[in-house]
């Protein structure tokens, strides 16, 4: 029950956001290219501590999947 709720909630949120997309031209991406949108703020030690403290894993590749910023 909890799993179904979590996955359905995520799916609904994703669809709602995706349906709101607008095409952004390359010359109009100043905010997307701002360093705070892409910079790493968690150092290697922080990531390792979270990995040890939490029984879950995953999501690390998402930061490499693009920023739409250039």
């Amino acid at each position, binding site marked *: 029950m*909890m*799993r179904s709720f*979590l*996955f359905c909630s*995520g799916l609904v*949120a*994703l669809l709602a*956001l*995706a349906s*709101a*997309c*607008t*095409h*952004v*031209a*390359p010359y*109009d*991406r*100043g*905010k*997307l290219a*701002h*360093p*705070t*949108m892409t910079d790493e*703020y968690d*150092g*290697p*030690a*922080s990531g*390792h*501590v*979270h990995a*040890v*403290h*939490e*029984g*879950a*894993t*995953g*999501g*690390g*590749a*998402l*930061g*490499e*999947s*693009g*920023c*739409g*910023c*250039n």
Partner: protein
Amino acid sequence: MQLTRESSSRPASPVPFSLFVVVTLVCAATRAASADDAGTTAAPTTPTERKAPKDTATKRASVEMATYGDSDHVGVVTPSVGMSIDNVITGASLRARYLVDVVSGASVDVVSTASRRWTEIRQAGSIEGEYKPRDFGIAVTGSASNEPDYLSYTVGARMTYDLDAKNTTLLLGYAYGHDTIGRHGTPFAVFARELSRATYAAGVTQVIDRATVIGVALDVVIENGDQSKPYRYIPMFAPAVAASAPLGASIDWVTAHRLPERPLEQLPLTRRRFAVTGRFAHRFDGSTVRLSERIYDDTWGLVASTTDMRWIFDVGRRFALWPHARFHVQSPVTFWERAYVSRNAGNGGWDLPEIRTGDRELGPLWTATGGAGVRMFVGADADPRAWAISLQGDVMYTSYQDDLYLTSRTAVLGAVMFEAEL
């Protein structure tokens, strides 16, 4: 690093070989990039007409020193160094990192087995090369980690593809990892457990508007092998005693009430892990908010949710400040027991549960993290961000819902980082 390992071990001397390899590779890549630039320049007719090739690569270096301490008497000091070379014109980049963990511990798990405080050194290095001249990019990664009784390496590849003028980016990734788990003081040829890990990742990032980007990724991890800790002994109890074991029972209570038999931990030999992660980032006029949510499930029955938020505020051209919050909650694995039951089998042996664990990160828990950071840009006026100093700290409070020995743990993680564009 195994923060709760129940062993007494002596420190190993750090071998700077990994650092040497990383530095050598980065230097070689720098020369290669310069050679490429030279190759695109018209050949000089005489030595006096030769012009120095323009180096279009951006080189960065960073050094971080992090310290961790918790109320369970575990401390970690982690110095690390990272380097990267990015050439936007050719689409090539190379990144490398090397770190050392110096871990010392006298946690309740160590004390409960009458072991001494232990200190151990872990070295880890990683390197990544990426080539993305246009819409399609490919990256290869490699990492290795070394402890006296634990060896690990991972190799992987990742592909990205931009669609709709980079408004949409697709990601596919695969990595293979192999761990060798040993016992301190025993050669791997005498005792070793092998663990293999295959990780599949797929994701998409979508620009929503001029200031917002979202992403979603699916990770599937397939683990095969025995990942039971060879130091972790599990106390066993008679049925009536197990039913009355109090939450956070003390070492004295456990010692007084447990059965003589105390087997080693035994975990299932396969595990399939699934995670869906969503990311949201929005740039306001003077700040940026970044959110992520991970939903996790695995074949051991552990279900978890992890929410992370950071709000970065610009303070002039030379400062950025941010609060950070993270909340993690998880259910226990299906074989989790606060107190395992064992019976005398009548033949001199014990009727033990086939699967048993004392790893409290497999039990029910929640962790709330709060912290803050500041980044000071100390570069020249023309480009203040070329040099930066960052300070950040997090406090983590974990509530263990169904454990022996501990009901909570408070930990502090602090880090200072220097970054420079060379």
